[in-house]
């Protein structure tokens, strides 16, 4: 056996007093950590391949299992940490780029946790959302510059296409291929019932999702997988994906193992072939080129659909957003560097891009200064963990937010960050039929709906406390925010005052 120099990550601890040897863990673990002893009855475990997905823990009928971090100390070194040493060994073994999944796990500052919200006291009344109307309906799309009316008071403005959402929360792009059809279907069902949108990602639209096209955002990415005229028209709006927060500057990569017949049909690529999207769109090398693509999509959809441009939050984000707005985008989505992914090169995920909080504040400020803020709606993406994060994003200037990791967690994801292996025990990030059937859309759409409904309640509660009864009055209302423990420069970029000011 070749030695790989890498100790395991976790230990599976089995409480023998509780274990009834039912073998549920054996049959559920796709990493084959649990197995029967030679007697065919006693259950044993080998922790080597455990990824801490907790499938066995959660299904064990007697709660006999526990996953522990495997501690194997290295000689202390603040520079050469165990993680760097292990990654070097992994590359010495494989000779390849390190791949990771989900969002950036490094301890960079999370500005949501350094921003505090306001509430009304004495000088203005707070509002009770259970007794008074509270509006969180959100409308995306280009807004006319000014209102003109004819003599009888009727508007003479031809309204550009608008998207009405019953909540400021949408589901971000996750392609069929990277996630299972059952997972996508659960999100589509939830989006329909909640009055919001789900996003097909760059994987095309599966025929089973036809019923949900009024709630679909269809993506046009650099690989152009599954893109044709009908695809563009079977949507609520079309999104041009320039970049993704988890991997700015590079295209998507769906490993061939995940490309089965269904995925191949939706993407229009051969079975088993890697779906590698080019890093850039090869027809977009400038803002002018982007304008052409936006125009083409609007032509193909008869000017009935808003066109969104999704970019990753990078250093010059404000200027790029301004350029996209001037290129004719109706909606601009900015994806921060903590945004999730099914597979990204580790070094890029962990080191490229900037936090969504700063990018959003800078972009909103720039658009306002240039007097074109009303030309576009801003959608923030890149890790919203709770409703308070959403409220803060809206107060920083976002019109709506894209959420993906949170709904996945609601469906069973435990953030084990091995989506790229295609062995997801929860039936989410896999195409293996024996695993995808573990996700029952009838159960999961309800869980996702519950989550967003709960967040909606909380958003209303927080707004009520501020004395605000409409989400439009919260949007870009940075006076409702105060920084804590932030430098002058950070406060300046966020456009907020320090707590106590």
């Amino acid at each position: 056996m070749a030695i790989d120099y890498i100790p395991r990550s976790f230990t599976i601890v089995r409480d023998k007093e509780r274990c009834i040897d039912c073998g549920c863990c054996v049959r559920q673990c796709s990493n084959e950590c649990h197995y029967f002893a030679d007697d065919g009855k006693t259950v044993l475990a080998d922790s080597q391949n455990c990824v801490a997905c907790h499938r066995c823990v959660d299904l064990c009928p007697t709660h006999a299992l526990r996953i522990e971090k495997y501690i194997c100390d290295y000689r202390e070194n603040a520079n050469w940490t165990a993680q760097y040493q292990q990654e070097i060994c992994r590359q010495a073994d494989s000779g390849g780029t390190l791949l990771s999944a989900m969002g950036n796990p490094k301890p960079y500052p999370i500005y949501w946790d350094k921003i505090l919200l306001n509430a009304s006291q004495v000088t203005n009344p707070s509002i009770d959302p259970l007794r008074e109307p509270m509006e969180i309906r959100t409308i995306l799309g280009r807004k006319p510059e000014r209102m003109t009316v004819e003599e009888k008071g009727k508007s003479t403005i031809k309204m550009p296409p608008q998207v009405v959402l019953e909540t400021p929360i949408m589901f971000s792009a996750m392609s069929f291929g990277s996630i299972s059809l059952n997972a996508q279907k659960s999100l589509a069902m939830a989006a329909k019932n909640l009055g919001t949108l789900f996003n097909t990602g760059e994987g095309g639209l599966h025929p089973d999702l036809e019923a949900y096209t009024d709630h679909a955002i269809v993506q046009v990415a650099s690989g152009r997988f599954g893109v044709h005229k009908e695809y563009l028209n079977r949507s609520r709006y079309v999104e041009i994906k320039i970049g993704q927060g988890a991997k700015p500057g590079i295209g998507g990569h769906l490993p061939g193992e995940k490309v089965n017949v269904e995925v191949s049909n939706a993407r229009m690529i051969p079975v088993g072939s890697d779906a590698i999207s080019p890093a850039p769109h090869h027809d977009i090398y400038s803002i002018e080129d982007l304008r052409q693509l936006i125009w083409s999509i609007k032509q193909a959809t008869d000017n009935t659909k808003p066109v969104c441009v999704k970019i990753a939050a990078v250093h010059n984000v404000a200027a790029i957003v301004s350029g996209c707005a001037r290129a004719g985008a109706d909606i601009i989505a900015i994806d921060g560097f903590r945004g999730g992914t099914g597979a990204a090169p580790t070094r890029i995920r962990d080191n490229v891009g900037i936090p969504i909080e700063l990018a959003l504040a800078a972009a909103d400020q720039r658009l306002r200064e240039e007097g074109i803020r009303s030309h576009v709606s801003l959608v923030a993406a890149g890790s919203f963990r709770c409703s308070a994060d959403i409220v803060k994003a809206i107060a920083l200037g976002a019109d709506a937010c894209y959420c993906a990791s949170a709904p996945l967690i609601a469906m069973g994801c435990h953030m084990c960050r091995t989506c790229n292996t295609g062995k997801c025990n929860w039936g989410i990030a896999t195409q293996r039929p024996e695993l995808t059937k573990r996700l029952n859309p009838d159960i999961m759409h309800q869980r996702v709906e519950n989550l967003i409904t709960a967040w909606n309640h909380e958003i209303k509660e927080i707004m009520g406390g501020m004395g605000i009864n409409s989400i439009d009055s919260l949007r870009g209302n940075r006076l409702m925010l105060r920084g804590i423990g932030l430098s002058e420069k950070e406060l300046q970029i966020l456009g907020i005052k320090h707590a106590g000011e």
Partner: protein
Amino acid sequence: MKKVYAKEELCLNCHLCEVFCKTAHSLSKDVIKANKYEQPAPAARVKVYGDNKLSVAVNCRHCEEPKCVKACITGAMTKDKKTGIVSVNEEKCIGCMTCLAVCPFGCIQTGKFAVKCDLCRGEDEPACVKNCPNRALVYTDLGGAEV
């Protein structure tokens, strides 16, 4: 009548229906005691067949005209006219297993007596349905085609 229907496309092959069936038919009603310590060990009335690729939990169909009732030589196996539940009277059963031989669905488990699903008499939902993590078992009177 309300019956348990299995959806094989959702069955996880986790066998938790068996574990909780045993528990429901034990003296202690405790999952660890029932599955580990209790003697005589309670038997599961439902059985999962297949592997991870395709599996299904098989349990008694409570047939309109049950072959097991017809074949029973002691009159231990009866179908309740009111509820439609087919059950074994353990005092009458001699364990000859003729019922097992004639059941077209293989729903009789062996033991000292014939052991079979009683739909957890009186419960709102049988234990197997209640504890199925993926709703692969459905308890309904709509019939199998509607599931």
